[in-house]
């Protein structure tokens, strides 16, 4: 079938929903999501959303901007950080007015708490900047926006998996999507496509990410020969539940929790003397691995302890109830009495589809791709630089999701309907046919597990040349094998076997982009830590990476960093 809408938004998490609610009523907009409504991964965000409301103690937009830039190890485009911090206040009030049930101060204002890297007075001490609803902030914000979208009558195509973008003469003409319920492949004709497909933590073995996080949006763009930006910057959250990778929010430390090694020592005091356990995530994750490498993991093992035993049951119940329940369910432990075994877990991708601050996707020469937009984790503004601060992500989604929506409306008149090519579904159908017809190939899971192991071993928190070269080589082999996988399920109805295969084909090129960009950047900055190049090197590397696929492998280019007022300085906390 052919569906037709002015604006096609791919992904119904927070960025997609916020863009859609902006456009609704002024243009014909549709949300296309591979998961059922309200299942998107924004819902898994626990800690909250940052905004310098100053409800609990003095705070300022400027401090928030500075923290975002320093948190990103000066790779942050500072114009984007300024927009974020300034618009944060309006955005949080807007969410509150829409009905988000934030926790409250005794005076009835939105309550705020501390989080990693958010400080007062340019790094002096942790500041209470995070607005939250217990530790289910993402879920309640997403549900609020979802029902707002329903109220506005926004058309949603649930469980439609997008297969390809369709262009005509360099301009977007729409997209091709697979309908899970029927197995039909549809062409969606549109004037604008906004990608808001989230992250791709599933390329790693240990991750807090959902199964749906396979990077379909960036993969679609990359397949078109367009660049991806700063792919080497992958955030490992310090506190994933040992073995599972399930997230324990940084709010646990924001509320006073501390990390301890096997000697019971609060080791973050040595790594970040001023803000200790509330240092940014990249530093805490490195500190944990450094402790483990020095034999100070718990009983010499590969994890440390998160200690919440001094917080008291009341605080745990009121502010950290979801994570308390996760710890009980998955570990059989009571955080009020027991230490929680944790280790870093792949959490967030700073890199992604290059966009400007209005959501327009840009090409390798920084020119706008007509009609194509991206927002949220799949995009790279670059707002988070080399390392994102906690609670800047939910904020990013609502601030820049809305901006993309606004820009779409402003430009819609200029974006004419483009006639699609004669057979827009051709490439997609061919890929599906191959997957169905391949015989005697391996199962997708065999390659998926190897991909996740290869990335975990050679391209996670610490990296070095030899290991990265091995990763790139292994990924090339895996991709060849992935093109020959076969699937059991040949049916048309709810064929998730086929989707698993298609997702694997999306993840492999993205993993290669991460590893190749990491190999290329011979310095350490933010979440990208090279053991063979341990220093930050502003002289050579204060620039963004742009990577794209050409006929002859990958080609790596660069883009300057926008610096408005904070000159790079050594990053200590």
């Amino acid at each position, binding site marked *: 079938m052919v569906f037709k809408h002015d604006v096609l938004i791919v992904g119904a998490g927070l960025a997609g929903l916020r863009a859609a609610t902006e456009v609704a009523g002024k243009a014909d907009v549709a949300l296309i999501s591979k998961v059922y409504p309200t299942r998107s991964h924004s819902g898994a965000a626990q800690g909250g959303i940052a905004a310098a409301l100053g409800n609990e103690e003095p705070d300022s937009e400027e401090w928030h901007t500075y923290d975002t830039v320093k948190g990103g190890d000066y790779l942050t485009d500072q114009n984007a950080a300024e927009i974020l911090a300034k618009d944060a206040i309006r955005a949080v009030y807007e969410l509150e007015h829409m009905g988000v049930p934030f926790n409250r*101060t005794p005076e009835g204002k939105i309550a705020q708490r501390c989080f990693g890297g958010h400080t007062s007075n340019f790094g002096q001490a942790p500041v209470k900047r995070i607005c939250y609803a217990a530790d289910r902030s993402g879920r309640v914000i997403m549900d609020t926006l979802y029902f707002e979208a329903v109220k506005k009558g926004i058309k949603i195509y649930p469980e439609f998996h997008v297969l390809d973008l369709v262009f005509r003469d360099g301009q977007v003409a729409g997209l091709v999507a697979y309908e899970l319920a029927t197995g039909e492949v549809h062409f969606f004709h549109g004037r604008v496509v906004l990608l808001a497909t989230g992250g791709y933590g599933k390329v790693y073995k240990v991750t807090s990410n959902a199964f749906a996080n396979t990077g379909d949006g960036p993969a679609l763009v990359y397949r078109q020969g367009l660049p991806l930006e700063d792919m080497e910057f992958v955030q490992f959250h310090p506190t994933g539940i040992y073995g599972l990778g399930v997230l324990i929010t940084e709010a646990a430390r924001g509320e006073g929790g501390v990390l301890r090694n096997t000697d019971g020592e609060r080791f973050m005091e040595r790594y970040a003397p001023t803000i200790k356990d509330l240092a940014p995530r990249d530093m805490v994750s490195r500190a944990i691995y450094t402790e483990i490498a020095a034999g100070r993991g718990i009983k010499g093992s590969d994890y440390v302890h998160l200690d919440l035993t001094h917080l008291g049951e009341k605080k745990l119940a009121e502010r950290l109830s979801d994570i308390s329940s996760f710890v009980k369910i998955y570990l059989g432990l009571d955080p009020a009495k027991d230490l929680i075994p944790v280790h870093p877990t792949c959490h967030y991708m700073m890199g992604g589809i290059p966009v400007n601050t209005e959501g327009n996707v840009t090409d390798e020469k920084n020119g706008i791709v007509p009609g194509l937009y991206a927002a949220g984790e799949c995009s790279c503004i670059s707002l988070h630089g080399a390392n994102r601060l906690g609670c800047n992500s939910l904020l990013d989604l609502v601030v820049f999701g809305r901006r993309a929506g606004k820009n779409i409306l402003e430009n819609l008149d200029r974006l004419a309907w483009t006639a699609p090519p004669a057979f827009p579904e051709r490439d997609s159908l061919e890929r599906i046919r191959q997957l169905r017809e391949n015989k005697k190939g391996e199962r997708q*899971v065999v390659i998926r597990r190897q991909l996740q192991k290869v990335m975990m071993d050679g391209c996670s928190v610490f990296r070095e040349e030899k290991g990265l070269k091995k990763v790139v080589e292994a990924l090339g082999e895996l991709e060849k094998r992935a093109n020959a996988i076969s699937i*059991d399920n040949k049916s048309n109805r709810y064929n998730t076997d086929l989707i698993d295969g298609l997702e694997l084909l999306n993840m492999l090129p993205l993993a290669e982009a991460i590893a190749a960009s990491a190999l290329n950047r011979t310095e350490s900055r933010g979440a990208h830590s090279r053991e063979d190049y341990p220093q930050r090197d502003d002289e050579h590397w204060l620039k963004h990476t742009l990577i794209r696929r050409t006929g002859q492998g990958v080609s790596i280019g660069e883009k300057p960093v926008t610096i408005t007022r904070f000159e790079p300085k050594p990053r200590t906390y």
Partner: protein
Amino acid sequence: MLKFRILRFDPESDKEPWYKTYEVDAGPGERILDCLNKIKWEQDGTLAYRMSCAHGVCGSDGMRINGVCALACQKLVKDYAGAEEITLEPLPFFQVKKDLLVDMDDFLDRVRSMRPYLVRDQAPPEKESLQSPEEHAKVEQAIRCILCGCCTSACPVMAQNPDYVGPAALVWAYRFLYDSRDSAFTDRLEKLNEPNGVWPCTNHFDCTRVCPKDIPITKSINFMKREIKNKLSHSGE
């Protein structure tokens, strides 16, 4: 080896649901969802179910596990220690689309019928609307709902009266009825007082027992019943 007996049904090709048994090698700490994934990925790719976050937040993988509605990602193998086999079936009451995957549209329509959004009779202030911690606490449990459907599918009343709006929709009604920022209190109570609002609930407590987020659902429904009796002159009971 652990035995799984899984209900299989494709309404377009099967006349009747049937069961297939699988054997999985799984440790005691593994999630039921991990076992399902092993089955689908290593043995039988034709099996259909939903899942995403795998830790009880997205609400995708509600199903009946040994007769009790639950999230497959929140139950571990050791929770069924001693059982000869683990039987997995789709959520009862929901229409089966394929195997363990059910239609959620009807369920969401029920929730949507409760107007699950803030209704305000005046424009909000410039900053946040004030709400005391005590006012916030009234909805603190209801906002945990993840729309998984376990409660509604476990409710024995649903089978007899499919028009009953069901426990999940009532959780959402409660969440907005008691939000101090909402202006539609009386309208919402009127809606709940309709014959298929709160009144079909006859206190079986199955919803409360299965809720993966520990929401006191039955208690909340009873609270709303009392509110109707106290505040509306024409309560429906």
